[in-house]
């Protein structure tokens, strides 16, 4: 195979994965960037979305719930609804908690969700996961199948970006900023702070579910290991903080930048001398941490800073 063509295919994959992470980061941006809700349980909503779409779209296997074989237009909204419902239940219970307490609560809830999914064998096939999840356009010839998947992800991103930019500039977005900056003042102005916080949490949760669903379709497999905090929750946080919290462009940029660094760094580290080869995998964690430090030293508010919409 021609090596340029191979790099082209890898670039498509890189952008597709970056785009899927961007959906997750946009979800977190609504919660943390707009409203100041510290959600440390991204992996939980990701997993609910991934499993829901897997169950909706797979053929009957006898090992897990399923057999509906429904197409994408059912599985993606289904995943968003399931994650939104869970997010609503979580928000209803603990949205009044202050930021760091909310972080601890959501961290615990994500772990509960992961363990439930891991243990309810009848629905999820437990630790062995759900395989044979259909991938959109997989019957097209290469490379069109991969290009079509990328275009689908990018189209979803574009729609989300336009909607969220609109929301951010609208009065709704300004209330969110007010709640984040000074909750007492927002309350004094007569705003239903709890209601708005629940809205932000549910909307963000729905997007995380969508990200999970896209990941499940892309990888064609989901198991509880894929909802480990390191590769889902924390990397999404790093993406948002580096890109620029509160800024939708920053969220997009951060997702693509960090994912590209994360994935391509292996191409570099495998070229290290043999005695470094096994250590190099860990070196990547270190390099990403180092990049976070340097970028935050240089850009304390993220690379693309938040621009407040100015009221007329």
């Amino acid at each position, binding site marked *: 195979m021609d*090596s340029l063509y191979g790099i082209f295919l*890898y670039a498509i994959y890189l952008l597709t994965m970056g785009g899927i992470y961007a959906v997750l980061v946009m979800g977190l941006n609504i919660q943390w960037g707009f409203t100041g809700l510290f959600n440390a349980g991204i992996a939980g909503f990701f997993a609910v979305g991934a499993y829901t779409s897997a169950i909706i779209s797979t053929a009957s296997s006898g090992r897990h719930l399923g057999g509906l074989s429904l197409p994408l237009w059912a599985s993606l909204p289904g995943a968003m609804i399931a994650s939104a419902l869970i997010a609503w239940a979580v928000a209803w219970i603990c949205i009044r908690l202050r930021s760091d307490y909310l972080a601890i609560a959501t961290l615990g809830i994500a772990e509960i969700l992961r363990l439930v999914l891991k243990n309810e064998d009848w629905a999820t096939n437990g630790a062995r996961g759900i395989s044979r999840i259909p991938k959109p356009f997989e019957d097209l010839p290469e490379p069109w*199948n991969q290009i079509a998947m990328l275009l689908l992800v990018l189209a979803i991103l574009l729609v989300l970006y336009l909607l969220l930019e609109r929301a951010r500039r609208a009065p709704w977005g300004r209330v969110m900023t007010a709640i984040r900056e000074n909750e007492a003042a927002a309350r004094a102005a007569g705003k239903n702070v709890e209601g708005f916080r629940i809205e932000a949490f549910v909307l963000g949760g729905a997007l995380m579910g969508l990200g999970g669903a896209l990941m499940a379709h892309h990888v064609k497999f989901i198991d509880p290991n894929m909802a480990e905090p390191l590769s889902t929750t924390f990397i999404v946080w790093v993406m948002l903080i580096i890109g620029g919290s509160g800024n939708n462009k920053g969220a997009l940029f951060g997702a693509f930048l960090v994912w590209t660094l994360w994935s391509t760094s*292996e191409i570099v580290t495998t070229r290290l001398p043999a005695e470094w080869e096994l250590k190099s995998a860990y070196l990547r*964690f270190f390099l990403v941490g180092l990049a976070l430090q340097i970028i935050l030293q240089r850009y304390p508010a993220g690379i693309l800073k938040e621009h407040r919409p100015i009221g007329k």
Partner: protein
Amino acid sequence: MKKSFLITGAAVVATGISSAFAADIKVGSAGGITGPIPDLVAPMMAARDLAAKHINEQGGLLDGDNYMLVKGDSKCDAKGAVDTGQKLVNVEQVVAIIGPNCSGATIGMAESVTIPAGVVILSESATAPSITDLEDKGLVFRNAPSDAYQGAALADMVMESGYNKVAVTYANDDYNKGIAEVFEAAFKSGGGMITASAEHEPEKASYTSEISTLSRSGAEALMVFAYYGSSGTTIIRNSLENGLFDMFFGADGMRNEEIITDIGADNLRGKIMVSAPSSDTESSSYKMFAEEFSAAGEDPSAVYTPGSYDAAFLMALAIEKAGGTDRGAIAEALMEVANAPGEAIMPGQWEKAKAAIAAGRDINYQGASGSIEFDANGDVAGTYSLSVIDNNGKWVEK
């Protein structure tokens, strides 16, 4: 292809200087370098590298080309495996992949990357029964037997050892749970009795309450299906400290020296037996491997390492047999070089294999881990044995 034709021509004219034209032939070596089982994976990677070293020392692939293993970190996670698989297949342009190690990672990489790309993969440790059913177009192989074999074999061996009433505890992951389920079914159908069975979450600080519940069931021994590092060692320590059980059986996830150093050989001797894919340590294939691997400063009894060596050696044989770097031809050749009939080739005998292939003779690799005969699903049947702790505090096959 034209280039390799020219190289062939040159090599025929002057065999002695053919290495001057040597190119790299890249094969992916994917494994869970980071993730939950890094200390099981490191020696497996070393065993694959040892095979590559032997091959390169004895003339290399094809026309003196360098057999180059490109490492990829599949993180024991399907996302990570897909990521590293994309890089190996598209950026590094490998002709085949050895690994990954974990079953979920193997399914993810196979379904999403390597099957669509037409790249053959050979894992030495992915044991989930569901891999058998993948629609893999003949591109997914493993030289570790499916857990379905080990669970059944262990049930027989426990009964032969004289235990008919056992309690079972298993870590809630795909590997241990798979073995436990097969074991329980086989043990019952063989006339044994499972007095109690409970799963446990790995990485807990103590399992005393879980085990004391199991110990009240009147069992003669405790079956521990777990990875030693994440829960197995703790379960055995808790049981011994509290006098809950004094006889344990386990599967190959427990067969590690660390469990002996942690608890002490004297405390464990005669109380624990674990099954592992039998590498028939008396076979000359295994001895060859063990000698070389020990000389390289590694432990040949580390689980799956003979299979790792075999996987890397088999893939090289398949490339040699295919006569080039065409991915499809390599996939087809893999089964031919592993299965009977043919001239027996043992670990380290690369020159002999190369000569046989050049002469057009069929070969049959007899690996360090066993004879390795792939069935139509790309699986191998397993033979297992029980290991015990000897007087030197090492695992030995009984």
